[in-house]
């Protein structure tokens, strides 16, 4: 046993300050200490992507970090992203396309998808597959996941284009 180390970090918008064993991985900290079990453990060596969370807004393997290394960081998990609505359209697309089966890989997939969607525009299917290159799914065969991300990107890009379009001026008589 070694001395616990103080760590302060923000998780899903809440500040957590406490002392943890240095060997406690970030994903174990999230799952055990904070009871955020949406992040899953699939390999504990950065090969499956089931534990991906956002650290300072970028997807990171929570199994490849010790909680003490997250000092000063902002962490978001699938629970937090869900609650702040950041993924609502993507989650709906996953449901509609059945882009998940057992759901064990899904939170990690969403983290990777979050990052590629955050870049804006409509990525190619190859770019989407590349963004998912570290996310293992044994159930779906990936195609549905690519479809769901692509569909979300298209919808967002269309909404973005709509927002940028100058307001068309309606003739007065057409106004209600």
């Amino acid at each position, binding site marked *: 046993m070694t001395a616990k180390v103080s760590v302060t970090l923000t998780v899903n918008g809440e500040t957590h300050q406490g002392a943890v064993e*240095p*060997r406690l991985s970030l994903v*174990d900290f999230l799952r055990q200490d904070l009871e955020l079990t949406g992040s899953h453990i699939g390999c504990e060596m950065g090969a499956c992507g089931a534990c991906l969370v956002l650290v300072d807004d970028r997807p990171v393997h929570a199994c490849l970090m010790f909680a003490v290394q997250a000092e000063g960081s902002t962490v978001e998990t699938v629970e937090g992203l869900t609650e702040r609505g950041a993924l609502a359209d993507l989650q709906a697309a996953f449901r509609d396309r059945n882009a998940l089966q057992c759901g064990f890989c899904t939170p990690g997939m969403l983290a990777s998808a979050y990052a590629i969607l955050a870049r804006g525009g409509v990525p190619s299917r190859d770019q989407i597959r590349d963004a998912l290159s570290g996310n293992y799914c044994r159930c779906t065969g990936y195609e549905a996941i690519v479809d769901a991300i692509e569909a979300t990107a298209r919808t967002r890009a269309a909404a973005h284009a709509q927002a940028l379009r100058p307001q068309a001026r309606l003739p007065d008589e057409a106004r209600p």
Partner: protein
Amino acid sequence: MKARAFSYVRPRTVAEALSAFAGTDGDASYIAGGQSLVPALALRLQAPDRLIDIAHIEALRGVSLTGDRLRIGALTRHAELLTDPLILRHAPLLSEAAPYIAHPAIRNRGTIGGSVALADPASELPAMMLATSAEIEISGPDGVRLVPADDYFQDLYQTALEPGELLTAILVPPVGPDERWAFDELARRRGDYALVGAGVQATLVDGTIARLRIAFLSVGATPVRVHQAEAALTGAPLDATSIARAQAALDADLDPTDDAQVPAVTRRHLARVLLGRLLGRLARPA
């Protein structure tokens, strides 16, 4: 798979880090991104008494052009190699190799310093130190020293780093106007360790190779610069004849061993094919 217990310190300066190491009996590890170290700890292949987290040392960050060198701070993440304008312009081979490093999430955490300090012979960046003629900046109790990449890699995971020394930066000579470069690798799946990979950086003057450096990964205990192949090309026009000569010379440069995935003979074959393709890319007009 839970790491053995260790103590943990979070120095803010290089001096603090070095003294944190000096305060142990040598059974300590520096950790930056931790993308290789953490799995080794989880598997209990390594179990240092102390981890010294260098991620909070400001001096290890940043990329700058200083004199005739591009200085890349040790904490520069792999993802930054893809986006940093100075690296894209002055050390483009690193940018070209970076997408091949594992997966996006690994690139968001892994650092160039960590990769070069570990010196995994199957990793992209150590080999690219050789190809780009980089120098490794090492800080130790006796001060700072620079080690050319050619002298840095010694054996499997063995480098010029002495126990307790800290890799603080990578210095790369910026590419000149006549330089061309190419990187490629043959990996079973996207982001896997390659069966073989290589980077080339060459100066072509009127179609003739004035200078070039070729470095391979995944072909032995260290990243390997292939001097015979380089000699077969230097001073020659870059064409099918010289490329074939270089491919033939490659056998003398490489000494891979058999492993579970690929026997040595296949690795040699793949290295020849890869070299031919890289040089072919270089030969095509930009």
